[in-house]
Structures are given as C-alpha cells and as structure tokens.
C-alpha cells in the first residue's frame, strides 16, 4: 500500500513539476514557436502552433540585417575576452592555490571586491578614455572590458578548482625528480583541465549575455547580438517573427552551453560560497 501511495505521489509531482516547468520555460518556447510563423500569424494568435511552418523570418533576418556580423562579434567578444582572461588568470590561480602566501586570502577578497563595483561608477571615465583612444565600438576595446569584468570570477573559480587538486601528488612528482615544467605539463595540466573547461564555459555565457558595456560602448562595428536585439526596440511594421528568429539564434548557443554548465554556474556565481 505504501508503495502505491509513493507511486501516486510521484505521478502527482511529475505532473505538477512539468506544468510549472513549462510555465517558467514558456516565454522561450513561445519565442521559438513564433520564429517559425509568418509575420501575419505571429501577430494574430489563433493557437499555439503556426498554421504553416516557415523559416521565412530566419532568411529575412539573415539577409536584411547583417546578422552575421553581429553574431560574429558576439563570438569574437566572448571567446576573445575568455581567452585573454584565462591567460592571465591561470598562472595567478595556480600560484594562489599551490604557493599561498600570507596575503593570498586578502588578495582573493580584494579581487572579488572589484566585481562589486557598479559599472556606472566607471562608465564615464571608460567612455572618455575609449573616445580619446579611438576604442569606442572596437572589438579590442570591448574584449578588454569584458576580460577585466569577468577576471575576478575566473580567478576565483579556477582557485576553487585548483584547491581540490591534492598537493601530495605534486610533492610526489617533485620527489621523483620532475622539474617545475614537467610538473606543470604532465601532472597539473591533466588534473586542471576539467576546472579550466568549466570556467571557460561559464565565462563564455557571462560575456555573451553582458548587456551594459556592450550597449553603452558599441554602436555598429563591434556591436554584438545584445545590441542587435536592442535595435528591435524601435520597431518598423510587423516584426515579431523576425524578432523571434533573431532572439532564438541569439540564445540557442547559450542554452546549450548552460545545459552543460549547470553546476559550474552555481560555483562561479557564488564565488564558491555554495557548492
């Protein structure tokens, strides 16, 4: 009897959870469904699904508004900022995890505190510096800003991962006469790769969705998808199917990455305070 009760309970919870899940997910689902409608259908809801599936909106977005350039900028900014941040962060995190000094903890906390600074506190000087150096609306400029923006999170995340690598293994390899270079290459690197990969994933997500600096500092040449989507806020004619198609393309890669990175999201965004 107890068994049947738990089964009933499980079925009830399954139904409830799916209904709630679908409600939460609905805006995304609706966007995807709308992207396959004609503009006429999009604005005239007669049912959940399109009367005739069409990829018209996608081709219009592709051809009319240099979507590819925006998408390419998003990719370049996300990958570029992540790459440079990792280059700077990996040695730092490695050093703080394996050769901690007296000040390591303070240093980590200080790095974190830079993340607490509201962007508007730096907006005006950065804007003026960029204007004077001709960096406004350039990929290099935005990559630098995004790199600095996420560097504290990256260092923290790498630090918490590196901390989990047992130090005894390093000592053992040192005893065996491995040089520092060999130690790094053969012992540390293979163990650090999962942590680095997770950090990379999280940072790509954060950089891809960043919508303060990218909106304030780009207009056209270096503008990523955040800016491209924002351009739909001044609509012309029927545009919902096009907006949906553009939105779907802008969020799809991140939804896929996020699916892989669920656990890392928690670790990265809480600075290791919740694991």
């Amino acid at each position, binding site marked *: 009897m107890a068994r049947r009760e738990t089964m009933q309970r499980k079925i009830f919870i399954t139904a409830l959870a799916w209904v709630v899940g679908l409600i939460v997910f609905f*805006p995304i689902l609706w966007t995807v469904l709308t992207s396959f409608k004609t503009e006429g259908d999009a604005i005239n809801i007669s049912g959940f699904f399109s009367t005739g599936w069409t990829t018209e909106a996608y081709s219009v977005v592709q051809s009319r508004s240099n979507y590819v350039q925006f998408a390419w900028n998003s990719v370049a900014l996300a990958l570029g900022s992540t790459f440079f941040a990792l280059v700077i962060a990996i040695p730092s995190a490695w050093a703080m995890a394996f050769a901690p000094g007296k000040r390591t903890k303070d240093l980590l906390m200080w790095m974190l505190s830079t993340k607490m600074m509201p962007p508007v506190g730096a*907006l005006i000087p950065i804007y003026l510096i960029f204007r004077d150096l001709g960096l406004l609306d350039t990929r290099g400029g935005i990559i630098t800003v995004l790199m600095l923006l996420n560097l504290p999170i990256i260092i923290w995340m790498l630090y918490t991962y590196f901390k989990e690598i047992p130090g005894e293994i390093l000592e053992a390899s040192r005893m065996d006469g491995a040089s520092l270079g060999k130690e790094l290459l053969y012992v540390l690197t293979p163990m650090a790769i999962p942590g680095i990969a997770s950090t990379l994933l999280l940072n790509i997500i954060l950089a891809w969705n960043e919508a303060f600096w990218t909106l304030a500092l780009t207009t056209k040449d270096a503008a990523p998808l955040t800016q491209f989507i924002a351009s739909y806020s001044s609509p012309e004619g029927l545009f919902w199917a096009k907006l949906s198609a553009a939105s779907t393309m802008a969020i799809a890669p991140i939804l896929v990455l996020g*699916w892989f990175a669920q656990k890392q999201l928690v670790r990265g965004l809480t600075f290791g305070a919740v694991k």
Partner: protein
Amino acid sequence: MATQQTRTLGKLAVSPSVFVLFMWMIVPLAMTIYFSFLRYNLLDPNPVCSLLTPGALLDAENRCLAGFTNYYYFLTDPAFFKAMGNSLKLVGWVLAISVAGGTLLALLLDQPFFGRGFVRIMMIAPFLVMPTVSALVWQNMLMDPVSGFFAFISKSIGLQPIDWFTHHPFAAVVIMVAWQWVPFATLILLTSLQSLDEEQKEAAEMDGTPPLSYFWYIVLPHLIRPMTVVVLIETIFLLNVFAEIYVTGTAGPAGNLPFLVYQYGLIANDIGGASAGGIVAVILANIVAFFLMRMIGKNLEA
C-alpha cells in the same frame, strides 16, 4: 629552496592579474571622483567659468572646480529620488519573488519524479537568456495589450487585457527581471538542498516527522545560508539592471540609478553630474558588498 623558488614564481604569476585589476578598479574610480568635483560638460568643455562664478578655481585643463555642486544638484534632483526609489523597489520586489519562488521551485525539483533533469533545464533556462532578448520578448510577444499572448489568454477567458507598459510599467519590469532571477535562486537553493544530509532525511522519515515541521526545523535552517548568498549576490546584480529599462523605454516610470547616471552622462553630456551619480551608486553598492564579502570570507576560512 624549492619553496623559495616557487614563492618567487608565484608572485610573478599573480602580478599580471593584480596589476590589471588594480588599473581597472583604481583608475576609473579616481577619475570618476575627480570629475564629480568639476563643472564638466562635453558640449561645453571649457566654459568661461570666471564669468559664471567669479574667482572659481581652475584645474590644469582650465575646467572649473565645482566643489560639491554636482552632488548638490544630483542629490536634490527630483529624478534622483525617483531613480533611487525605483532601484530599491526593483531590488526588493525581485528579491522577495526570487527567494520565495526559488525556495518553492527548489523543493519541487528536489522530489523524485519522471523527467527531472529535463524539467530542471527548463527552469534554469531563463537565467541564460540575454537581457535584451528577455525584455523585448516580454514587452512585445507576451505583454502587448492587443496581440500579446497574455492578451490572448485574457480575451479567451473573457477578461479585459492589461496594458502592462502603459498602466503598470514598473510591475512589467519587475516581472521580466524576476523571471530571469528566480531560476538563479532555484539553482543555488537546489544545489544546497541536495547537499542536505541523507541520514538526517532518513531519520526524519523514520520518526514520521510531518512535512511542515521537517521543512521548518531541518530544511529551512539548512537553506538560510544559501538564501543569504542569493540575496547578496542578486542585490549586487539587481542594483545594476540596465538593459531591460534601456530597450523597453521605461526610463520614465521605472528608470533606476544606473539609468539616471547613463542619462546624465551619455545623453545630457553632463560629466560632472554623472560622475557624482556614479559615486552615489558606488557607495550604495559598497554597503551591500561589505556584508557579502564577510559571508564569503568566512566560507574561505572554513
């Protein structure tokens, strides 16, 4: 000896990130503070300030030193009170919704049921959506009073559709921002729930503890810490909400402190005033940051 070598190498390895972060934090902040004491407008970079305020001091670039005038004007601007109020209201509402909603959703997701992994992904997804996308999708396809999905639902059950952005623009912004942050709270609280001691769970079950007291005496105390983390981290991010207001054009009714600074600086070109506003925002964020840092610092020792 090896450790000495490692130490030196370690310092060398840490220095680039310390250097760039120091530059990133100190240089703009110092400039913002300096600008906040200047009469500095981009449209009129060198006003003849001796005419405006006889005997005024000039800086090296002939800009008027303004003392606390910018702060005075910013802090007495009615728009500041409105923006400050909106900032705090937005943070308060979204926090309340996301902690309550996040707890409920996390408890639900912690139960065993069919397709749990898939439902979890659906619930986390909104957090991964680009803010500009979320804002425009909500504004148009969901909340449009004529052809939006909510209007469609209202009409089909015989109700008058709500014109969200005309009559309840602030609530509309709260809803779309909360939609993105409830999943964040859910994800963190769920992670924490799953680390709840299995033995404790079983013991409670054996004793036949009623679900409500189980939640009150065992689950809730366990969740207090992650809840605090959620509140602090969300506060940091929510104080900086910008894109949702920028793309939906709700600056009038829902404009917050970051948006006001943006308006002062990049639209009105009043660098001095915008900088003073920026400093006000920095002070506000620092009060929150102080508590967050203490929490994280404690955890670092543990």
